[in-house]
């Protein structure tokens, strides 16, 4: 496998090609989206390949350290000429979604698979954490709306919708909301890690100062 890859000629890159990234450890797998956290741990990976190669990927990242020869603790991509490692982290926290097998493509039978952190689809209410992923170009307001609905979901403190503009900066200031890194592809996201005691203290303070009120007040600043 490695030798055939070594003799493979470098193709001219076209505009289409920049979306596909070959996985160096398993060259028969191509990835079209990759999102990681601030430690370069895998959050979301979109992979195309044949069933055999995908099975190889699943098994090798599951083995990780246990198998020195075949285990994969990280995946390597060449991104804009720079070799970049994506760490698999805790494989038990990963899950996957796959298409049916596409038969008779130009590369034989192909599958499309997403490997991602379970927190992307299941917010952890006990620990008040969640990962919010979005695909494509999302209008900022739509994103903010969805983001807010997830915050309301994982926060045990009562939140009112008109508090959004006060609370969202609070989360950023206290580092409870981290942007995830998009290595390539059309997926981006944030990770929410709510610190409830800190949030309770800050919000209590805002309530006492009447910055958070029971009903929306219309101090828009516009002169009538």
């Amino acid at each position, binding site marked *: 496998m490695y030798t*055939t890859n070594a*003799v*493979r000629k470098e*193709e*001219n*890159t*076209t505009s*289409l*090609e920049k979306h*596909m*990234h*070959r996985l160096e450890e398993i*060259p*028969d*797998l*191509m990835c*079209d989206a990759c999102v990681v956290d601030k430690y370069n741990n895998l959050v979301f990976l*979109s992979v*195309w390949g044949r069933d055999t190669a995908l099975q190889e990927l699943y098994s090798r990242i599951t083995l*990780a*350290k*246990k198998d020195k020869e075949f285990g994969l603790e990280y995946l390597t991509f060449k991104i804009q000429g720079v070799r970049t490692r994506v760490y698999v982290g805790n494989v038990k926290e990963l899950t996957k*979604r*796959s298409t049916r097998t596409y038969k*008779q*493509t*130009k*590369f*034989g039978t*192909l599958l*499309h*698979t*997403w490997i991602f952190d379970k927190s*992307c*689809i299941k*917010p952890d*209410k*006990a620990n008040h954490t*969640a990962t919010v992923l979005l*695909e*494509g170009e999302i209008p900022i307001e739509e994103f903010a709306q*969805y983001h807010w*609905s*997830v915050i309301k*979901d994982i926060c*045990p*403190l*009562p939140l*009112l919708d008109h508090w959004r503009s006060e609370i969202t900066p609070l989360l950023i200031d206290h580092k409870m909301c981290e942007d995830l890194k998009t290595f390539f592809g059309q*997926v981006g996201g944030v990770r929410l890690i709510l610190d409830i005691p800190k949030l*309770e203290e800050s*919000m*209590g*303070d*805002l*309530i*006492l100062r009447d910055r958070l*009120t*029971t*009903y929306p007040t219309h101090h828009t600043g516009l002169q009538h």
Partner: protein
Amino acid sequence: MALIFPRVAANFARNGYYPTDEPTIERILNAIAAKDPNQRIRIIDPTAGEGVAIAEVAHHLGRENVEAYAVEYNRERADHASTLVDHCLRSDLMDTVISNTSFGFLFLNPPYGDMAPGYNGAIYDQSKGRKRLEKLFYQKSFPMLQYGGILTFIIPYNQLDDELSTWLCNHFSQLRIYEAVDKQFKQVVILGVRTKKSDLDLADRKKMLGVFKAIYLGEMKAEELPQDWPYDPYLVPSSKAELQNFYQITMDPAELAREIANLKGLWPEFNLHMKYKQSVPRAPVTKPRDWHIAMALSAGEISGPIHSSETGQTLIVKGDTHKEKVEHTEWKTEQDGSKTFIRTLIDKFVPVIKAWDMTDGSPYKGKIITITTVKDPEPEQNVNNDGVDLSSFLFPIGRLLMTRGIDDLVQQGLDLLPYVTRHGQGDWGDGYESDNKQNDRAVKAMVDGHLYERVMSVYIIDPENDLKIWIITEWHGDDDGHITTVLLPSEY
């Protein structure tokens, strides 16, 4: 001395690309016809160039009934060919998987040239004579033809050596050979019908071998391909079976990107898979009673501002129920008298209702009021009933087992827990220094929270009576996990 003859260099630079000349293609068309009009015919050009030749064959045989396949290595030419044929791979032919006996017509105008020694397509190269690209491509391509399928093979006459002639005569009947219209490359056009070896006419075979040899040696000159085909046309059979394989092995990023543009994969369902499904609270269908309200609150169905006219309070409430693990530990006596320490985690549903006090003038304004079934806070969650702080343990002790001898000591009043705690915290007791170092290494080498090598502690209970206990922790695989055994040295 030059690296390579300039004329040959031009050939290789174009990957041996010499498209078949237009008049030759036209005259070949005159020699072929569809055997079963209105039935599907599958045709292939494995070295298609811009795909002109195979596209013309497709039109000639009746475009709507023909599935045209092409393989071309050069990207630009492949791009062009893919607009003319139904299926086109941009690939080295040697990197493709194409089903055998699946095509009714094969148009083969291979690249011409000598092969480099150790060429990596050598698995197809069964040649014993001069190693030529023509032979490699012939060997890879002719099996694609169905029996009864028609071959059109274009090569320079001076490559028709004994070996290639023998191959052709072994695989094909009704062979005919003509000179191409364009004389520049000294090409001949060979037509034939793929035939099982057992069905070959040996006299014909011998005759054709003689003709090929004479042409190869230049003793005889093939006629030019006739403008008006004087015989019955070669009949291209229909292809009834489905084509199983037609793909390239090596993943090419650009080609894959194009394929994905068609397939789309999981992408259209991104929101379906990756967005949380959030329930939207609905208004109750009937006036809720108190217990309805209690249930709905704890289920998180009621949230928002509430005013109490009785107390004058304004609260913003939110209810929710989440799962917590409750730890339960017990000693269990087995039938053989040994005892097992069992630690069970039970899911427990905990309703929590929280409210902001928003009442102006209230001393609790801006404070959270909590109603729940569990005591808050629980600072010492990791401490079990017996006071063992499991969080300080360097490795999981898992199930705790003791032998009959130890059980007897426990009956006599021995408290094991301090020893188990020391063991868990890496105080290996009174064993040999080398064993203790081995234990330290085993703990350091832990992977995914489990031990690969066992750890063992020795504690002297009563030095006068030379009474010692051993505590051994081992990992027993994913199913059983860790097991810690307390035993007497004599019971080992």
